[in-house]
């Protein structure tokens, strides 16, 4: 897959300096480390647990969006960041995991009855949990070995679940707030654009062969 991408990238001569992938992970984890440090040193304001919980969730969503932005960037602007996509996707997963652990341990104090009731009774938590469950197999099959074992097509089909995860994350964010403040709606709009782009493109492709004979 990277072969085709780099060909497209070199066509317009738009090349970005390559950085080691490990740097993406290191930079990617800075917000988590900083938030946790700020939390234990009392720099997160009046409600530090909530601030940490929300920041981790938001960063998970941001990395998920970044992952979804790779393809349009390549196709529309010939900016090829494909080699970082796995790192971004895994960062989204790790942040979602930290977000979930914060909710279970710091927010709910491992009160399993309360957590269970939340999952069953609160749609935003049901959706959030489902989104995490969707991300789990994607993270587990993120290795080269998994791609080889599954075969490229089956792997790609499975990883289309990331679209569902993005919808879940957007809905989770909208449902957790009171009223309709702009921030979750802006994030939802970004997801809509990224997914809408793919939908339009795939519909266009399907329409093409029919047009040719006419």
């Amino acid at each position, binding site marked *: 897959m990277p072969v085709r991408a780099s060909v497209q990238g070199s066509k317009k001569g738009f090349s970005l300096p390559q950085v080691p992938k490990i740097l993406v992970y290191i930079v990617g984890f800075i917000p988590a480390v900083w938030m946790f440090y700020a*939390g*234990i040193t*009392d720099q*997160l*304001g*009046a*409600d*530090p*647990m*909530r601030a*940490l919980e929300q920041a981790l969730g938001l960063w998970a969503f941001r990395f998920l969006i970044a992952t979804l932005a790779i393809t349009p960037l390549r196709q529309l602007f010939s900016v090829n960041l494909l080699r970082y996509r796995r790192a971004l996707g895994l960062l989204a997963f790790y942040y979602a995991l930290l977000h979930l652990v914060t909710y279970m341990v*710091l927010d*709910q*104090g491992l*009160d399993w009855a*309360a957590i269970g*009731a*939340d999952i069953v*009774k*609160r*749609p*935003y938590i049901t959706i959030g949990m489902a989104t995490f469950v969707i991300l789990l197999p994607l993270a587990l099959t993120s290795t080269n070995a998994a791609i080889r074992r599954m075969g490229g097509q089956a792997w790609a089909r499975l990883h289309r679940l990331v679209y569902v995860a993005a919808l879940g994350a957007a809905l989770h964010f909208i*449902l*957790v*707030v*009171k*009223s*309709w*403040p*702009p*921030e979750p*709606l802006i994030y939802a709009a970004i997801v809509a654009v990224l997914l809408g782009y793919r939908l339009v493109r795939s519909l266009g492709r399907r329409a093409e062969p029919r047009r040719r004979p006419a």
Partner: protein
Amino acid sequence: MLIRHPADILPSEITPREVYLSRRQWMAGAAGLALTAALPKELGAAPLSAAKSSFSVDEKLTSREDVTSYNNYYEFGVDKADPAKNAGTLKTSPWTVTIDGLVGKPQQVGLDDLLKSSALEERVYRMRCVEGWSMVIPWIGIPLADLIKRVEPLGSAKYVAFETANRPDEMPGLRSVFPVLDWPYREGLRLDEALHPLTILAVGLYGETLPNQNGAPIRLVVPWKYGFKGIKSITRISFVEKQPVTAWNKQAPNEYGFYANVNPNVDHPRWSQATERRIGEGGLFVKRRPTLMFNGYAEQVAGLYSGMDLRKLY
């Protein structure tokens, strides 16, 4: 019960004489405020003195820093830190409150005149937000009942409706393209709730006039109800016959009832109300504490709701 004395002692019977004179000090404080108005930090922070009230709870106070930096005041933004950042633009002096509707003495009254109805008291109250967190705040204010009695509501008045200042020029939230609420912010109480001795109009906290982000210059505090009932920066108090429209109830009637009594047994549709996080307690490792019926004021207020189905009338 954490309340030191039950509710049947009238504040006026226990208020020391010097407190009756405290309004002068408040005025002096307001004058001092005018002089220091150029310093943004000092806005809304003139000293106030008030008598300790027997209605106070004996619990650890939430720090002034937390009380004044973690606010829901959507007129100034939806983030908890926004009001402290943005509310400085609200001009709180001069301030006039319109009292109208089914009332013997309708009037437009300046803040200082309004406070004449009784001496300032300090009330340490629990504050439980509908979002699941709580604080303990030393308010300074007057019983709403004292004001109500002074303006002589008619027999037909069954509810009291309140309105926040409606000033897009001074309130960025009111200029938003996507309004979060149907402005102006409105709240209401049944007349007997408004007359309850625990219900106060607050003008200060922590020994000083209210900071703007906490609802300066005058706001409602109803400690047994969720915080959103405590309407801020009040400009109108109307006496009406029918249950008035209230902001959050209008926005999402299935989530925010007119009564909005703190009730651990009736969940918000999107989250549980059984427990709460006390702000400033435990930091990152805060432990949830059980939410108390009527926020711990059941002994004083449960009688107001006898015979009512609080699951339906949440």
